[in-house]
């Protein structure tokens, strides 16, 4: 404890002064070079991937959330504020997806340009039609309901394309010199995804899978787009882990509807799922719902591809199950 003796402490006054003046010198000697490229900051990796598709190497883009992190549950690390301070454009998913941390980051960044309503703030959710928007008052008895609707719209490729269009327009506004580049890239991206759409639709149809169980309502937009039915959710209510009773009800429901395909976002892990696996022949597919959540999902297109593949795997599982059954029947005969 001797190093903290009072005699030592009283020199602190002079020391504090010294440290502070040193810092001022350091700071003012750092010349901030004017960058020509736009600095774009996104909250999620999927939005980052959309920016990359539209802008190529004409902008610097970084995502606050890293691949394996769930954008629901990030904490407002001050280092994100440092990034947001330098940003020319902040792109957020919106619908309260980032409500637990983004307000603190925007506030701490002290960057007037990325405040709500400024040209440097783009809320992607404003350009899409949200699903599951609660009517009337939101009651948390029903869990952590998002008051403005389900924020996981990026898994719908059509909405994804719409967002890329808005990104292209905003980038053109902030950086008119490269407008042509952004617009052409966006058109190319749109064409590519829409072509893929046809293949994805065909593959899902061929898989024979129509009924899906998911953990959280992360796949609502995807299921809606590809005409798949949601049988039930494993979590009891948004943000509330399942009770045994809920799992038993779900098992019954899955039996009744003959559904066997469970889609899990890699962000969620729950032991209760084993209960379902024991009770029923089910295929559990863990997929990326954001770019980089699993290694395979290197860009936006591959995220969607991953979900489609998972459904194909479910379809294969059903087919194998049926052939086994038939074999068994034949064997008995």
């Amino acid at each position: 404890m001797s190093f903290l003796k009072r005699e030592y402490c009283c020199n602190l006054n002079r020391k504090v002064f010294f440290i502070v003046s040193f810092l001022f010198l350091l700071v003012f000697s750092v010349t901030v070079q004017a960058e020509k490229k736009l600095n774009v900051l996104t909250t999620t990796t999927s939005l980052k991937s959309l920016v990359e598709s539209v802008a190529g190497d004409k902008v610097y883009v970084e995502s606050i959330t890293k691949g394996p992190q769930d954008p629901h549950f990030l904490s407002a690390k001050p280092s994100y504020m440092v990034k947001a301070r330098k940003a020319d454009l902040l792109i957020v998913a919106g619908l309260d997806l980032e409500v637990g941390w983004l307000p603190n980051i925007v506030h701490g960044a002290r960057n007037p340009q990325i405040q709500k309503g400024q040209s440097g703030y783009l809320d992607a959710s404003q350009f899409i039609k949200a699903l599951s928007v609660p009517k009337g008052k939101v009651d948390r008895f029903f869990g952590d309901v998002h008051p403005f609707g389900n924020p996981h719209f990026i898994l719908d490729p059509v909405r994804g394309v719409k967002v890329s269009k808005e990104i292209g327009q905003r980038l053109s506004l902030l950086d008119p010199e490269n407008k042509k580049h952004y617009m052409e890239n966006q058109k190319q991206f749109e064409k590519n995804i829409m072509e893929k759409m046809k293949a994805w639709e065909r593959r899902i149809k061929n898989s024979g899978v129509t009924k899906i169980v998911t953990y959280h309502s992360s796949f609502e937009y995807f299921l809606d787009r590809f005409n798949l039915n949601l049988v039930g959710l494993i979590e009891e209510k948004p943000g509330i882990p399942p009770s045994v009773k809920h799992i038993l009800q779900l098992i019954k429901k899955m039996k009744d509807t003959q559904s066997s395909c469970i889609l899990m976002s890699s962000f969620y892990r729950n032991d209760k799922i084993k209960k379902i696996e024991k009770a029923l022949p089910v295929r559990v597919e863990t997929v990326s719902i954001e770019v980089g959540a699993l290694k395979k999902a290197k860009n936006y297109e591959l995220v969607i591809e991953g979900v489609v593949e998972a459904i194909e795997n479910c379809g294969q599982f059903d087919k194998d199950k049926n052939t086994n059954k038939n074999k068994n029947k034949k064997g008995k005969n």
Partner: protein
Amino acid sequence: MKCLLLSLVFFSASAFTLNKDVAVSKTNPDISVNILLLGKKTFSAEEHNGEGHAEDDHEEDHGKESGNEGHEEHAVHDHAHNLGDGVSIQEVEFYFKSNIDPYWSGSVSVGISQHEKGFELDLEEAFVESLFIPSLTIKAGKFYALLGRHNNLHTHYYPFIDPPLINQTLFGFHGWNGTGVSLAWLSPLPWYAELVAQGFYSYSGEEEFSGILFFKNLWDLNDNATLELNMSYGAEVNHFEHLYNAALVWKWTGSESGRSLAWTAEVFQAVADSDSEDIAGISSYIQWQFSKQWWLEGRAEYLPDAKWDDLKTQKYSALLAFVLTEYSAIRLQYDATENGHGKWGHGVSIQTNMSLGTHPAHLY
């Protein structure tokens, strides 16, 4: 006071009923209410919580150096919280927060807490902050001073049920706030380096000015871990001529949500004016989130005598928290306190920490 309380209840009630009217509720500030219910049991006549400790110290000091009047001032205890065993409302906190226009945002928080004779209403914070200046936030109004890491936390954010002993001794149970202006500058350095200057003015018979310099650094060690180093200096704060604080935080957050580990250490040295004693103290704690809903925490604290020759008081705390959702938590805390005479006191507290209203944006 009752009048204020009534009007507040009425105001918040009307704000909630107006919620049905969409046009109005859309421009309402974000409102949230925190309810902290506390149950406490101590197991020794000599048990000392923070307030008790400080008083005791001073009695002893008086004995040693009689006629030293200055002590009383340091023990600015919040007697409202000197409740004994039993169940009480630790605090009900009301928050109102909103952007005012493109240039300012505003925030108000009001706390109601229980003491022996009833309830006490306190305007904890009421300030406006600038949104339009690059790299700088100007804040004006009443707010908690940036003295170390713990002082500016609201009660429901406390890592343990009670504040560290040294904070209780220096600033009372709620921390030190005042009316003034704050300039917070985020430097262009590549890591988070923030320099804050705060000036407070108060008038109670005579004019008093307090000044604070706060320097915060935070480095990303990797994607999951950060190191934070804070230094603060206060002049003429709470009758202390000089206040020095250094705080160190190492924090790790798992890539998978629901796992984290943080270690915090904070040192205070308060230098009093010539006619009273200095005060110093260390608190150090570990917070471990071992599953999505469970936290285990441990804290060790020392208050040495002013010359750091001798440990006067030590306290050890352990806390287990069950966090059901982001809106509710139940916390159980055990304390063992040695009051400097070799006598140990023990205490158990249980707290429910509930939050109504808008989703909170968490501090890091």
